């Protein structure tokens, strides 16, 4: 029964395409189910890009209000945040890949695109929002997924977000409540301007019985890799960047605080609240950095006690 999700019902998909229930409701899609294989491929591809943004496409199907992502493939483009339409370079590749898929009996269509934000969190920038709006206009149903490979390593879990944009001019009835995340100072303006133009979908994962069996076989290898690796040493540059960014945020908050103190007769109460919440955000960011460092150090200390304290 766990493998039944992999069955592709062409008739049902064709019916979805005819009825288009998402056309009248911009909030129609609520969930995303990603297969273990697709997740692994996307994360490995994002990680391979290092500090350069990479992108790819996802194949799958629709099931009610959920996207089901069965597989993903990389596109031969890089630096997606620095160009307006990086996807255009890979158009020929995309078309050829999709056609070849059908020939080998792979029936799933492309249902979305993914790209990486190395070190600066899962959200959609202005360029990403424009790209997704275009995709949703001409290739519905379409999903945007963002992966942060750097934070994946330092946090110890996959940093991933799935998003869909609202049409231009649409005002969502309720303010979407999103999980707080640290945004670097250089990206904070881009984040703030566009954050209300899209919403996040809930992500769950699934795997086949064969995936379960293979992952079980790799259990020991996973533990050998985990015990022998040291993210504390490997993520030095990223941590230094985060601390530098935090220092700049403190500088900004401090200068605004100093100005508000001098002009406290003129400053409206709302602005004061904004400054206070800035310091609260900075505190939260510093706590997050510390907690990650402490977790990594804990693993080092435990390994030291376990393996280096054995006396013959």
């Amino acid at each position, binding site marked *: 029964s766990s493998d039944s999700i992999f069955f592709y019902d062409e008739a049902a998909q064709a019916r979805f395409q005819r009825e288009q229930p998402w056309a009248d409701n911009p909030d129609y899609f609520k969930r995303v189910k990603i297969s273990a294989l697709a997740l692994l491929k996307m994360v490995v591809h994002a990680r391979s890009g290092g500090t350069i943004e990479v992108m790819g496409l996802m194949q799958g199907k629709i099931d009610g209000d959920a996207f089901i992502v069965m597989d993903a493939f990389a596109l031969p483009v890089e630096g997606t945040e620095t160009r307006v339409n990086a996807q255009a370079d890979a158009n020929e590749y995309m078309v050829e890949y999709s056609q070849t898929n059908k020939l080998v009996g792979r029936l799933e269509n492309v249902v979305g695109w993914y790209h990486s934000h190395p070190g600066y969190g899962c959200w959609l920038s202005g360029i990403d929002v424009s790209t997704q709006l275009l995709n949703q206009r001409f290739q519905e149903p379409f999903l945007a997924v963002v992966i942060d490979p750097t934070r994946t390593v330092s946090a110890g879990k996959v940093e991933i977000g799935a998003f869909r944009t609202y049409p231009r001019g649409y005002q969502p009835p309720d303010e979407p409540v999103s999980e707080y995340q640290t945004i670097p100072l250089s990206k904070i303006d881009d984040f703030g301007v566009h954050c209300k133009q899209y919403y996040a979908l809930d992500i769950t994962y699934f795997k086949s019985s064969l995936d379960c069996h293979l992952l079980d076989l790799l259990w020991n290898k996973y533990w050998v890799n985990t015990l022998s690796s040291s993210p504390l040493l490997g993520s030095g*540059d990223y*941590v*230094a960047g985060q*601390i530098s960014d935090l*220092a*700049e945020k403190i*500088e900004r908050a401090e200068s605004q605080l100093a100005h508000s103190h001098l002009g406290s007769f003129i400053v409206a109460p709302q602005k004061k609240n904004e400054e206070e919440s800035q310091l609260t955000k900075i505190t939260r960011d510093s706590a997050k950095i510390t907690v990650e460092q402490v977790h990594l150090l804990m693993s080092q200390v435990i390994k030291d006690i376990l393996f280096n304290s054995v006396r013959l």
Partner: protein
Amino acid sequence: NYIEDLLKNVRTQVLLKLIKPYTKIQIPFISKELNMPKKDIEELLVSLILDNRIHGHIDQVNRLLEHGDRLKGIEKSTAIDKWNTQLTTLYQTVCHQVC
């Protein structure tokens, strides 16, 4: 016309792959692995260091390549120092507010 450039590219890739796991590598070892004279290895290493493709320096006395950025640890210390300075300023600003 292009053989030398191609050879240099191939040797560069092999060299970078070879020295990746090490912090100190003997130049005679690299020369043996790449099957190249030591003088050519040194020239190649110099050009890669100057191009910033290798972070490290050559110890000609001991015929060693010391791989790894010496400044790597300093970045974190500089960032922490910056944080400390900004905290001091913030603390002073908050204290001024009381007065």
